[in-house]
């Protein structure tokens, strides 16, 4: 699908989904928000980590930063500014950190980005304690549920549309080249450092904006809740299970995963993590290209399938 068609399709889907608050029950609406949140997070994660194979575990850090922008600003700033600000803070943070750590690859990069979430969490805890003498915040003045839903939908749709545009752009090509052979890409004229920082920051923007948009659903915010490593890990797993090299894979996987998680949690409150974990192991072992590779394999053009198959696997950094 061309970038223009993907953007139009995303816009159309978003318009249809925008009717949900007037059609769905509260329970179904909150389930849809969960789907959209993970769709936005997984697509934005795959925007950078999919083509480059740089396994970033920093999603929780970006998400939490965004959430805290909302926590600080929601009572005084316009809502749209909170969400955009959450994205911007995360993007700037990603650019600064990226400049320092994006020369690392593989496990080093993964561990460092994971540590980043912890670092920011502790920094914010310290900051809140010393300046506001508090560990958590109760959000009193928050937008209504419909506004929150539409914001989450907007951020998710924007993430998908931007991901589609990036895939078709020189940035996307550069990121794929970096994932294929970083040095080779450099010798062909790619300023790999600049491209990696740009991709990383863009991906962080949507994670931060999503954090900012979703944060108000929790009335009480504290660092352990918003810098929850589970959110970051779940995002990575969703994207990898769906097929990080594709656009549709993480998207579909986010929906399936969110519904499935909810179903398991309601039906098997104790065993659900066991089932989820087992399923992941099986998928990673037997379908390294993600669920999207099943679709690719059926396509008539053997060449295209072969090209896509190897690209989506877990990091080869």
């Amino acid at each position: 699908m061309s970038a223009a068609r993907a953007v139009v399709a995303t816009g159309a889907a978003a318009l249809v989904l925008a009717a949900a608050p007037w059609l769905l029950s509260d329970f179904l609406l909150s389930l849809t928000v969960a789907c959209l949140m993970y769709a936005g997070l997984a697509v934005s994660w795959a925007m950078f980590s999919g083509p480059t194979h740089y396994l970033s575990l920093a999603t929780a850090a970006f998400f939490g930063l965004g959430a805290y922008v909302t926590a600080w600003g929601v009572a005084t700033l316009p809502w749209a500014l909170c969400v955009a600000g959450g994205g911007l803070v995360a993007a700037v943070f990603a650019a600064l950190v990226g400049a320092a750590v994006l020369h690392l690859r593989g496990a080093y990069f993964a561990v460092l980005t994971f540590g980043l979430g912890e670092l920011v969490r502790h920094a914010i805890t310290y900051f809140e304690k010393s300046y506001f003498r508090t560990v958590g915040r109760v959000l009193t003045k928050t937008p209504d549920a419909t506004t929150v839903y539409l914001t989450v939908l907007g951020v998710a749709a924007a993430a998908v549309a931007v991901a589609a545009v990036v895939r078709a752009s020189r940035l996307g090509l550069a990121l794929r080249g970096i994932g294929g052979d970083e040095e080779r890409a450099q010798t062909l004229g790619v300023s790999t450092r600049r491209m990696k920082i740009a991709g990383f920051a863009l991906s962080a923007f949507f994670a931060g904006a999503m954090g900012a948009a979703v944060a108000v659903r929790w009335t009480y915010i504290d660092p352990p809740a918003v810098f929850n490593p589970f959110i970051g890990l779940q995002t990575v797993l969703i994207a990898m299970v769906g097929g990080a090299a594709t656009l549709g894979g993480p998207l579909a996987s986010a929906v399936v995963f969110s519904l499935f998680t909810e179903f398991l949690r309601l039906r098997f409150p104790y065993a659900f993590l066991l089932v989820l974990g087992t399923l992941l192991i099986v998928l990673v072992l037997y379908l390294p290209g993600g669920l999207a590779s099943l679709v690719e394999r059926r396509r008539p053009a053997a060449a295209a399938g072969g090209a896509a198959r190897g690209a989506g696997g877990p990091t080869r950094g």
Partner: protein
Amino acid sequence: MADVLLAARGVSVRFGGLIAVDGVDLEVSERELIGIIGPNGAGKTTLFHTLSGLVRPTAGRLSVRGRDLTGRPPHVFAAHGVARTFQTPRVFREMTAEANVRFGLEFAGRRRAHPHDAFDDARSILAFLGLAEVASVPAGALTPARQRLLEIGMAFGARPDVLLLDEVAAGLTERELETTAQLIRRVRDELGVAVVWIEHAVRALMGVVERVLVLHQGRKIADGSPALVARDRAVIEAYLGGEEPPA
């Protein structure tokens, strides 16, 4: 004398206690066709790494068209018209052959005008190399010989003035070797690109190039016409202590 495109002056590379390249001077002028030979471990590939910006020289200066690029990253060398291939083909295996060539055109080659039609687009580059019929095949599925050609095609995408070829003929049959030597000649003659060619197949190389550099233990021990270099005492000693250079 034509303009000097690429110049290395007193370039040395040290890895810990090992001196891989030791004070090498090299000037590449427009439309020159230069060969670099030397026994294994002579520092040929490391020299290429410095000439393309991948390895920063420990000492010495590098310049392209008089502009000092010492210590700059590889994409700057590419942007100034220095393109290279690698000993083991480093193609983007998941992309098609055409996309591999287009990659350079999108980045280093984007702002570089080139007078020759052969550099217009990915298709014409593939046609020049005889790879037109595999344009839409993923690079990883090509034969090793074709991957080597594609390596050259990727470098063409950067629309270079100087092409650095690192053992593009390694592992080829006698006939393929002959074809490759002809191709390299055409690159210079028809496209007007200066070529620096590292090769172990000394005989094939000597038949094509106009000037040969001999490296031995990181040092340049000879630099001149093939006929002259083949009679050089130091060169003959470097190769198997007195026997004729192996082909």
